[in-house]
């Protein structure tokens, strides 16, 4: 190995380590803070103690369980997110396929509209949507937190670009064997598209897990509320118990982190193989 190369590698590692520290320190702050007495979290935020759990104390975690029905919130979040993700995979992949590979009237216009819809965040349409679901009598249910979010323009777009890139020969072979469109889709397209399914699953999981405004508007009480609303219980009443908030935060992130670590390989491969890169 040449000197030049060695130096360049050393520099790369130095840069990576520095950046990694900057990226991870807020997370460390949270993790460490979750294991400290509430009053010490802020006082020690300015010293190296912010990152070192010198004395591990799980009291904050016990507090979280005492203050909210964590299991209930967790179940609600898992259920709602799970449903949105699973149903979304079915519905949006079908639509993406229809736009990418099937010929039908109005396809281009409708796809343009789907792209335009991509711009609209939930906050922008929350109030009219709220009136609407109230009319349906959907308030305070799981349904109201699931159904409106299944169809997703961004997911459709991702499926669309991925399917565009699949070789046509795949389908043609199946068609020659006399398989229908649905059959072709299920038997040929889906098995060849695992990366994009993984990518969409992770992305919609991420965006769904953190929802706050919508459940706040359409649910009351603990029965069907998801995790992000429980944080409101900690963040309202001074004195703020930073330790409790962080303990809650750690427990809230853990499931997503696990999901991500588990699917990471597929996800990365999905990104490599799909339209997400343009």
């Amino acid at each position, binding site marked *: 190995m040449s000197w030049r190369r060695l130096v360049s590698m050393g520099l790369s590692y130095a840069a990576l380590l520095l950046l990694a520290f900057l990226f991870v320190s807020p997370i460390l702050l949270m993790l460490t803070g979750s294991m400290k007495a509430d009053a010490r979290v802020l006082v020690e*935020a300015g010293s190296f103690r912010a990152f070192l759990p010198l004395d591990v104390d799980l009291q904050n975690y016990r507090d979280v369980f005492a203050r909210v029905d964590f299991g209930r919130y967790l179940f609600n979040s898992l259920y709602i997110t799970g449903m949105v993700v699973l149903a979304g995979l079915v519905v949006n992949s*079908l639509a993406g396929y229809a736009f990418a590979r099937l010929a039908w009237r109005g396809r281009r216009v409708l796809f343009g509209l789907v792209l335009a819809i991509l711009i609209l*965040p939930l906050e922008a349409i929350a*109030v009219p949507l709220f009136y609407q679901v109230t009319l349906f009598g959907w308030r305070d249910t799981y349904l109201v937190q699931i159904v409106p979010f299944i169809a997703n323009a961004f997911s459709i777009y991702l499926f669309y670009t991925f399917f565009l890139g699949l070789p046509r020969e795949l389908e043609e072979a199946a068609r020659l064997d006399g398989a229908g469109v649905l059959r072709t889709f299920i038997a040929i397209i889906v098995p060849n598209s695992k990366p994009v399914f993984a990518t969409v699953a992770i992305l919609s999981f991420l965006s769904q897990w*953190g929802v706050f405004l919508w459940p706040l508007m359409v649910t009351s009480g603990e029965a069907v509320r998801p995790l992000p609303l429980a944080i409101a219980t900690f963040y309202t009443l001074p004195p703020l118990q930073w330790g409790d908030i962080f303990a809650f935060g750690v427990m809230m992130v853990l499931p997503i982190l696990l999901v991500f670590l588990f699917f990471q390989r597929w996800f990365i491969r999905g990104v490599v193989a799909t339209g997400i890169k343009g």
Partner: protein
Amino acid sequence: MLFALPALAGLLMFVAIPFLLAIGLAFTNLRLGSPLPLEFVGLTQFLRLFADDAFARALLNNLLFTLVVVPVQTLLALALALLLNQPLKGRALFRTLFFMPVVFPLALVSVVWILIYAPGPNGMLNSFLQLITLGEWQPRDFLHDPWLALPAIMLTSIWQGAGFQMVILLAGLQSIPEELYEAARIDGAGRWQRFWYITLPQLRNTLVFVMLVTTILAFRLFEQVQIMTRGGPRHATTTIMYEAVQAAFSRQQVARGAAITVIFFLLVLLVTLLQRRIAREERL
């Protein structure tokens, strides 16, 4: 068509119709729960918005935020991706670390960063800056400083979003055929030349995609503001979406919120169309 039907029905039902409703409401005086009769008020809501300096500030802030965050975040992500695109040990670990913030819900990220920006010498960022400036730094109250509040929110957003872009750019980098580089090396091209003449052009579509998505997200900026600064100080961090939610929820002025929504949609549509056009022209 049949295949697209469920998704289209969903989008129609839960996005398009509410949005059309919002367009209609923007021309009324609707207030949540008001016993007064609903009235058509023409362009009043829009005229008021354009006369309101908080809303003007919101537009400006969104613009500033986009102009800073999109290039800075993309560059940072590109740098990370380039660093990780070398044959180094521990690549997967670093990649995971950089991606971690993406996994955090924004509400939680904002709460953590409030603590980082805590004022006084005890604050994490304050003491860090004091450390690296050898005590020269005077502690500031970042989130209440008219000049620092918006940059503080930008920093938080970049921290949270860069990892996502990095993964996409990394994917883009890895799909550039190795032969191109080898051919260039044989031609005696240096590192920078290879970067300029191979990497960037090959990465072009990926970059356009990444910037487009980041732009849309930048215009949607809301949660960080809601939790960290509530639009303050003196509207220094207010955004279009924050103004919309404030109007519709805190003040129950649904019609005003709807009018903001309409302006928002038109604005972002315009920006994305412009971006696409520019991207397309450069391709020729």
